[in-house]
């Protein structure tokens, strides 16, 4: 699913479902995978930037089923991969199989359920496989090699490595923890690995790709532009993502 890829994240419905689709069409020019966050009332794994985006979308009346419409709209224009990022409760509430089936019908390629640990996910993984949806599970710097194997086993899309402890959000630098985890994951996982949390600069992207990451995930650095510019964020998003995508190349000058 990843091959020296930039994965870009935005929150569905922020500032509106229509604009989400517009932003996706900007993102797809520079990224191989678009990650769409489903707004949730209590997003404990997220920092304030993405939490605020969820609240903005929910205040505007965003419903979970709107995300399927957005993906369907996107499919009319692009073949690029789309993965949903969600907390488990909206999935559980809708009914796990129904959620997965509707995702597949809309053209979703994969799902990340951030608070569903790999070792309690057998039924979910089976249902995803049945409907042709890739599973993506998260590993953190404190994940043991043994658990990395479990996470890799449950994943059919890629393994998402968090660069640090804590929540999503921009960080000044990508620390040693990220590179240690990346090197362990590369030696253990049969899936490609993507690194997220804190990635916000071209040099972050370059350093991670050079260290062997198959993909780099950028969220808060894009979502903050939507917070700042709202409906008019398109060109700001384009500028930032173009800049970040340069990090995929070896040459800083290119």
């Amino acid at each position: 699913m990843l091959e020296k890829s930039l994965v870009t994240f935005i929150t569905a419905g922020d500032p509106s479902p229509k604009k989400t689709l517009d932003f996706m069409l900007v993102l797809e020019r520079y990224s191989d995978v678009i990650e769409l966050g489903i707004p949730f009332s209590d997003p404990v794994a997220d920092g304030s930037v993405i939490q605020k985006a969820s609240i903005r979308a929910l205040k505007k009346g965003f419903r979970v089923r709107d995300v399927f419409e957005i993906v369907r709209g996107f499919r009319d224009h692009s073949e690029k991969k789309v993965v949903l990022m969600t907390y488990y409760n909206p999935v559980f509430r809708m009914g796990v199989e129904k959620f997965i089936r509707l995702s597949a019908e809309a053209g979703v390629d994969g799902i990340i359920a951030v608070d569903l640990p790999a070792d309690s996910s057998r039924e979910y993984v089976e249902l995803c496989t049945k409907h042709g949806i890739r599973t993506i599970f998260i590993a953190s710097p404190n994940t043991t090699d043994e658990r990395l194997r479990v996470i890799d086993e449950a994943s059919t899309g890629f393994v998402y490595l968090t660069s640090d402890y804590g929540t999503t959000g921009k960080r000044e630098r990508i620390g040693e923890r990220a590179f240690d985890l990346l090197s362990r994951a590369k030696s253990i996982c049969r899936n490609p690995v993507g690194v997220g949390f804190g990635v916000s600069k071209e040099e972050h992207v370059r350093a991670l790709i050079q260290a062997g990451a198959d993909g780099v995930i950028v969220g808060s650095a894009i979502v903050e532009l939507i917070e700042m510019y709202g409906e008019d964020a398109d060109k700001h998003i384009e500028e930032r993502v173009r800049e970040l995508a340069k990090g995929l190349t070896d040459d800083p000058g290119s």
Partner: protein
Amino acid sequence: MRFGEFGGRFVPEMLIPPLEELEEKYEELKESEEFRRELDYLLRSYAGRPTPLYYARNLSKKTGGARIYLKREDLLHSGAHKINNTLGQALLAKHMGKSRLIAETGAGQHGVATAMAGAKLGLKVDVYMGAEDVERQRQNVFRMKLLGANVIPVKSGSRTLKDAINEALRDWSRSFEHSHYLIGSVVGPHPYPTIVRDFQSVIGKEIKAQILETEGCLPKAIIACVGGGSNAIGAFHEFIEDREVRLIGVEAGGKSIESGEHAASLSAGEKGVLHGMLSYFLQDEDGQILDTHSISAGLDYPGVGPEHAWLMETGRAEYVTASDGEALSAFMELSRTEGIIPALESAHALAYGMKLAEQLDRDDAIVVNLSGRGDKDMGIVMEVLENA
């Protein structure tokens, strides 16, 4: 790890290793004679255990029907049952080599009890509290600060307990190497609901010994209020095998169940996953968690501990509601008949206890867990009575 299908460990991956560490250390320590002796000493000499089982003669006479006993957790140091758990977990944290406690609090009782345990055991304490609750519970905020704790107002979401829990979880996910998250109720990911229950089960053990001594038999019913449900599980647990004893949890009915302004997760919620557990939650059709309402900030939580969900589904415990108005009436009644001002939380249990007593005979005894005292609620009660 599960209570039937309920409970579990639904958290971001980085919290799994600290939860495993906690489980391992707890399993080891709970078998340790030294740890039990240390905790027992703290509970007796510092917290004031055992608490009396008090026969409320005047209230029983006035209510008519069964004799009402009150388990006086309100007499504990800190003024509520919360101290049983905070001393236990703070001691656990210390044995784990952690230097800092993170807590979240609604009414402030758990925050105060954590601040006390932290001060006593020499641990730094940071308490997250919804900005709304910081306003509503200013006295407890002041108490926590006096005790050396740092109170962090949470301005996100509904600015109440659930948002404080979200912030505490975020903090823990970056600080678990040196911090212990001291959860205040039988909620959260495994092993928290079990650990908190174990530390609170002292309540039921004492009730059993005391009622057998006074009455010579077990009570008809044990009644306790349920927000997250720690005092209720504490009171119930010893009696789960004693099928003849009815276990009744009383949830916050708020303005009314029909109005939607309540905090009755078992009576009016749906199954869901939040704060690390599968349990019952107040939520909309999309699984978005709803805001709650209760006159008692301590019951104002949209979920409930997974063991309660299981006790309800298996039919072993019953769950009912008491409205704000009923709780307030019980609050006044106990104050006037017995000279005991209960916490608004406990007043919910009392309201239903009085109702049940009326239906039973004079020969029957029931126990209401008086989980805390009402001093902290003076501001709220004064405001309600002045506007009445």
